[in-house]
């Protein structure tokens, strides 16, 4: 691993002031040039639309010896494999629209963390990235470099079809790909004819068209190649319906997590996002149907009964999250290591407090990915030089081997907290 030039190190110290402890040299070295063997290979980002009830999510004590808060109880078995953060956010204004900031930083709809990572490391996979939602997606989470919101798959059967296509689907898919390539050839030729006759400004604009066309062509070629490769097979079977009804969101969550673990295990993709919806869903938990929809509960107005039910729903999310971590620990990657060791799992939200629609102090948890875990990192957002959520994202990107010095309004990192 290369050490960065000293000048950078000085700039770092100057920029951050002396309030931060000097990071260990080892972890600081991570931001160097894109490393050949990054510590983590996959990124999974999970965002809940309605956030988490803060005082049930954030431990009261900082450091290693914190007492598990209610919402972390379900993941108690993985305590040594995750770090929980409080006080982090993007310093973005409040309001529904700012939910999209979650992976984008201070500017909603900016190049999101997952897409930045997918652009760097996802290109050789069957799917550069996969975007999913459990429940209806009311917000967008993943944004391309151009700020374009990416669609999310809501039906487990559609994801399953993508990962483990049936012979009929594969035949149709192959037909569409091959004939699609002939239509690309045609429009490419036509565009070339056009280009010779348009103004300089239009030529530049057509340049975008050619770039995009080439990219799509590459993607299609890759997909055609993948058609001939054996498709991963699985014994896993979905139920014969898609749990798209609001009442079945938790079931959809379970299936999505199962398929996500399979997608990583079969190396179908390196980057996955999962949006966890929150509208009128009325859940039945342990045989008891809750007295109000999820969204109504989130507007709890500090009513203790509403909060108790809200925490019940959130606990269900955490149980499913825990089962996902279980699977990542049990399944292994190509090198025989547990998937969790090479997969960074970020659990967070763009909503700090849904009762007030506040987007500060975002509940955040990072599991796996080869980091040293086990702590609650409590940061004081009012402190001068307080770290930002984007600083954490920089550390995640560096762990994945990206050369990243800035993310939105953040320009440092939190490497030292995992040191």
């Amino acid at each position, binding site marked *: 691993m290369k050490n960065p030039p000293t000048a950078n190190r000085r700039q770092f110290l100057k920029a951050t002031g002396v309030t931060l402890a000097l990071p260990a040299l080892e972890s600081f070295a991570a931001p160097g040039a894109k490393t050949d063997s990054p510590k983590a290979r996959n990124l999974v980002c999970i965002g809940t639309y309605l956030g988490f009830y803060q005082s049930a999510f954030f431990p009261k004590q900082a450091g290693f010896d914190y007492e598990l808060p209610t919402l972390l109880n379900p993941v108690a078995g993985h305590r040594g494999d995750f770090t929980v953060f409080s006080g982090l956010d993007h310093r973005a204004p409040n*309001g529904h629209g700012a939910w999209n900031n979650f992976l984008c930083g201070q500017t909603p709809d900016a190049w999101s963390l997952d897409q930045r990572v997918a652009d760097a490391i996802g290109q050789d996979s069957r799917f550069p990235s996969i975007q999913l939602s459990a429940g209806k997606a009311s917000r967008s989470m993943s944004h391309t470099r151009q700020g374009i919101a990416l669609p999310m798959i809501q039906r487990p059967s559609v994801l399953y079809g993508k990962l483990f296509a049936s012979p009929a689907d594969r035949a149709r898919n192959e037909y569409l790909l091959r004939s699609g390539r002939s239509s690309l050839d045609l429009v490419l030729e036509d565009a070339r004819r056009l280009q010779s006759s348009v103004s300089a400004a239009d030529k530049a604009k057509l340049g975008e068209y050619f770039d995009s066309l080439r990219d799509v062509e590459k993607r299609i070629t890759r997909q055609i190649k993948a058609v001939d490769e054996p498709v991963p097979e699985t014994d896993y079977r979905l139920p014969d319906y898609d749990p798209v009804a609001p009442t079945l969101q938790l079931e959809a969550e379970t299936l999505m997590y199962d398929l996500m673990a399979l997608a990583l295990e079969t190396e179908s993709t390196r980057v996955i996002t999962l949006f966890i919806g929150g509208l009128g869903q009325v859940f039945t938990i342990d045989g008891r149907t809750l007295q109000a929809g999820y969204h109504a509960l989130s507007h709890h107005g500090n009513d203790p009964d509403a909060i108790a039910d809200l925490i019940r729903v959130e606990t269900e999310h955490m149980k499913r999250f825990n089962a996902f971590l279980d699977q990542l620990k049990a399944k292994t990657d190509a090198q025989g290591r547990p998937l969790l060791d090479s997969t960074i799992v970020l659990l967070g939200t763009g909503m700090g407090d849904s009762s007030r629609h506040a987007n500060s102090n975002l509940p955040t948890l990072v599991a796996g990915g080869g980091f040293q875990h086990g702590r609650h990192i409590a940061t004081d957002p009012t402190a001068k030089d307080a770290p930002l959520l984007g600083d954490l994202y920089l550390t995640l990107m560096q762990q994945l081997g990206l050369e990243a010095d800035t993310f939105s309004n953040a320009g440092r990192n939190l490497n030292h907290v995992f040191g």
Partner: protein
Amino acid sequence: MNLRCLKFLCLTFLCPFLSEAVSPLPEAQRAFLENHCLDCHDAETHKGEISLELTEIDWSDEANHLLWARALDSVESGEMPPKKRKRRPTGDEREAMAAWIDSELTKHVPIGGTPARRLNRTEYRATVKQLFGLREFELPPGFPIDRELHGFDNLGEGLVLSPPLLLSYSETARLVADRIFPPARKAPEPGSHRATANDLAISYSSGKVVNGALRLGMKCDPIQRSCTWPTRFEAEASGVYTLTVTLSAFRPKAGEAPMIARIFARDVSSPDGVKHTELRLLKEIEVTAEEPRTFRFEAELFEGQTPVVHWANAALDSDREDKNELRAFYEARDRETPGYLAAWRAMTANQSQGFRGGVGWDRVKSLLAKGDLPELTQAQREAFLKKAIGNPVLYAETVVFDVFENGPALQVHEVTMKGPSRLIEGPREKESQRLRKVFTGGETKPATIIRNFLTRAFRRPVDDATVDSFVELHDRHRAAGRTADEAMHLVVRSALISPRFLYRCLNDGPLDDFDLATRLAYFLTGAPPDNKLLAVARSGRLSDPKVLRTKAERLLPRKATAPFIENFTGQWLDTRLLSEIMPDRQFKFSAADEQSAKSEVEHLFFEMLKENRPMTDFIDPDFTWTSARLAKNVYGLKSGFDKKKANTIHRVALQRGGRHGGVLGNAAVMMATANGVDTQPVLRGVWVLENILGTPPPPPPKAVPPITPDTQGARTPRDLLAAHTGEPSCAGCHRKIDPVGLILENFNPVGRWRDQWPGIDRPIDASATLPDGAKVHDIVGFKAWLVANIDPFSECLAGKLLTYATGRAPNHSERKEIAGIVSKNRQAGNGFRDLLLALVDSKTFRTK
């Protein structure tokens, strides 16, 4: 001689055609810069990121167009050099400098210059819809959003094409082609599915399962708030199914009409918020028995559908404008159960939320059980009823739990689906028949079909080479053993990703009649030119000013909800942001109010256009369009509006010279320029400069965080802003921004008038000194000033219209043309429609 000069000389000698793009600075102008500008704007200090230490200007660099246009504004307005400088240029010097910059800009910045313009989201959707004759066409979820530039999402430069977008185009093209030429599919095996009460959907407060039956209690339109449906079933194919529904009446009221259950068919993939009124009715059932009875019937379910059960004559409704039913409901319960209203009132006394759903009802029950509730006075009763009726989502969704427990409620015990017993032509098959007819236009020869289709798709005659390449693609596919449908499917997929379809006006040379038709049609209708307009273009007469005007008049919107009005006003006035803003609860601003607010602005714009109202009526009209709720709650009107039209926009006469009315001081704009919680005078100031006065400030310097005065503090926002207008680095812009922002401080974050700053006991001081030195006391004075100086506003709006129409921000020469048109139009009565039509005939509009 420095290197740069040398380079310049070389260029002049070697490439004479380039020399025009670089003008050397004459001695007099260099002296002016040296004496008055370079102290701050030299290469080293380059204050405001501007350096004027130059010997020449390279006009091929577009950054220089903007730089010198700004310099001209600063010199003309006297903003630069700063007033505090001891040595300032004489009037003559200043005029000479301004005249020189003006002539250079006019010479080097010609009218025109929109780069090839890709269809944006809304245009693309309208285009596909019109091209294929689709009745319904929504873009797939997550279809990429366009980026805004200069406040609009349809500018050539901002409409970038990216790989994911091209993929989306390609994917959407396939979906459209599938609708015309559906791929062959295997018929499914008949099967059966049984859903018991626990397999039925519940959301919000739509139902509750008690003793093995799901009870329904509301009849609101959105199915997610009133209906239920099997959660694990969707029809695999369009066909006839045998449905059984087991229902009963739970504690029906004696003497009342029987319960009516309606069974609808619903696409599982449609939003849960879909209204039952939009669904296809399968069966209506009268339910009188208190014992479960099974109703069996045959019904057509289309692929992907599931049956939905709705109780049509339930008492409760959380969505309707008429709230008398809710009132009657409470009053009846209060008569039956003494203390009922008192318990409700006690339960909600200190709570604005949190009790929604069964939680609240459980509390009411325990209060009733405890007894000892105070007798309510008439005023207390009325106050509570008003609150409960005024917020039906919160209250109806709580009181419905009383219905679930005590009835009357409609009980759904079981729903079963068996089939399909035979397949039918579903909407997919029927639609494809119709779309084929549109596509072929009755022709049978593939080559003819393809030529006609491409001419429509590319909005102009298509050259033979292009047509031939598509015909070849088709023929090759057929020769490879593919079906005729598959070959046309491929033609459609290919045409929809061709640059000739995706970009408009992508041709050599000036804007021809076809391009003009395209520009005009997308401008005024948001869609491609129709056959009539294309025929005029083909005849070569469209560029005739008289013909152009007549055609433009024909395309003008006929209603306030037209795409042009929605897209333009939403972006000019930023009212598109409304859906992103959640007004704080204290403002009691409902989702319907938000819709009304947006609609008000559209109606105002429509009337201005339709009635050719004078431009000053944008500022201070004698009318407004509003709903009764907004008239009362936001504008504080006592009369003049229709009280029955709570959420329906209607015309209301106003006195001129008031606080409200016009584009300033309406709810939508005041909301869009605040954040839902507090106001930010800086945001509003920038908004006024950009969208009313047409003098947008440059973007804030990167290093400085945005300043948001803390209105909760002890000092007034005015004091706080003064602090940074004192800061020299901020003052330049904020001296212009802050005053016009403060003028609007009397409007709270939803546009309601206020006299005190919130949180501090201080009267609002909204007075300001305007750019020309005029002093105004408040919004009324500002509006009077704008009416007296209407041209800058008209130029601003004209500039926005042309930006939207041509896909580029007007440059110096174009702004000069606009100013001429505005001034001429003012002398001719200053009508808005006249202005818009004159703009269509401008050189700016007619140049690529």
